């Protein structure tokens, strides 16, 4: 059943394979994002309650859901690497962590910047906000652990264990925070009166969302290829590649 996967578990093959995918991903990301963002900023209607501040939505929500999606991806990669000892799965998890952290940070920042005009404060200890903040800490933990190990293979394994422990914990965190919140306060700040999204808001959102997803794919590909190179530096194919590409001083 796993046979078809086998060639891709070879670092050299996946290095070249991702190399071939990259231009396609990049083109898609560029097209989708430019259509989506122009649409979102210029043509999408303003919200009847929130006015033009609603345009933050088009970054905020994709960033927030991608931040969680990437963690999910990382957890799967970590599981694969622990169960099947796939070194490439480690490399891909390592490639995803910083991207996920950046998207989490974007979700937090855009959320805050939206919260100031809407709720009158940059920050409240709301369930969603708090669990997003904790997600950022989890990401930072994984990254810090990665950078603390010198041997990248070991770093991958250690970070994998942490990712898995964190992923078991993530639903608990989410649940606990939600519960804690409703228990303490009757919502003092009115949450977003959920507008039933009209089609002319939905389309640009879809473009933005897919565009950001493609951007994630592009960056993860770049980082994945870097990880492969760094982990296989003594392989002859890497050596050949290097002697062709190194900039000599």
């Amino acid at each position, binding site marked *: 059943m796993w046979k078809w996967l086998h060639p891709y578990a070879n670092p050299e093959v996946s290095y070249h394979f991702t190399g071939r995918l990259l231009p396609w991903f990049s083109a898609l990301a560029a097209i989708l994002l430019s259509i989506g963002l122009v649409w979102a900023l210029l043509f999408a209607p303003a919200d009847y309650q929130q006015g*033009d*501040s609603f345009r933050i939505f088009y*970054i905020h929500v994709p960033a927030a859901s991608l931040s969680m999606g990437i963690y999910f991806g990382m957890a799967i990669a970590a599981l694969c690497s622990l169960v099947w000892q796939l070194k490439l799965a480690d490399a891909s998890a390592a490639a995803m962590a910083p991207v996920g952290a950046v998207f989490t940070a974007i979700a937090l920042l855009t959320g805050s910047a939206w919260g100031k005009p809407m709720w009158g404060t940059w920050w409240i200890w709301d369930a969603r906000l708090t669990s997003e903040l904790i997600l950022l800490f989890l990401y930072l933990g994984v990254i810090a652990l990665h950078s603390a190990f010198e041997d990248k293979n070991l770093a991958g394994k250690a970070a994998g264990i942490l990712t898995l422990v964190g992923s078991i914990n993530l639903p608990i965190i989410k649940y606990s925070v939600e519960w804690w919140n409703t228990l303490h306060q009757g919502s003092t700040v009115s949450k977003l009166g959920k507008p039933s999204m009209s089609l002319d808001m939905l389309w640009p959102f879809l473009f933005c969302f897919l565009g950001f997803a493609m951007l994630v794919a592009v960056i993860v590909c*770049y980082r994945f290829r870097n990880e492969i*190179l*760094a982990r296989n530096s003594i392989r002859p194919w890497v*050596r050949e590649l290097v002697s062709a590409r190194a*900039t000599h001083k």
Partner: protein
Amino acid sequence: MQFNSFSEFINMGGYGFYVWLSFGVSALLLVILLISSKADHQKIINNIAKQKQREDKLRQARELRKQQASSAQDEAEQATS
């Protein structure tokens, strides 16, 4: 088109600061991430190249020492003979 003029576009119905802050910071972070990911590639390649140079240097030093050792041995043999 929702906006009649450029300044209206910038103003964003009074929410300009927050909207442009969000878009600006997001763009900045993503661009930094993208560029640093791309730049790492060359950095890693240069590192590996440096590594290779170091190995070559070691190999040379090793050969030199081997030569010295063998010539010393020769001398010693000559001296005894």
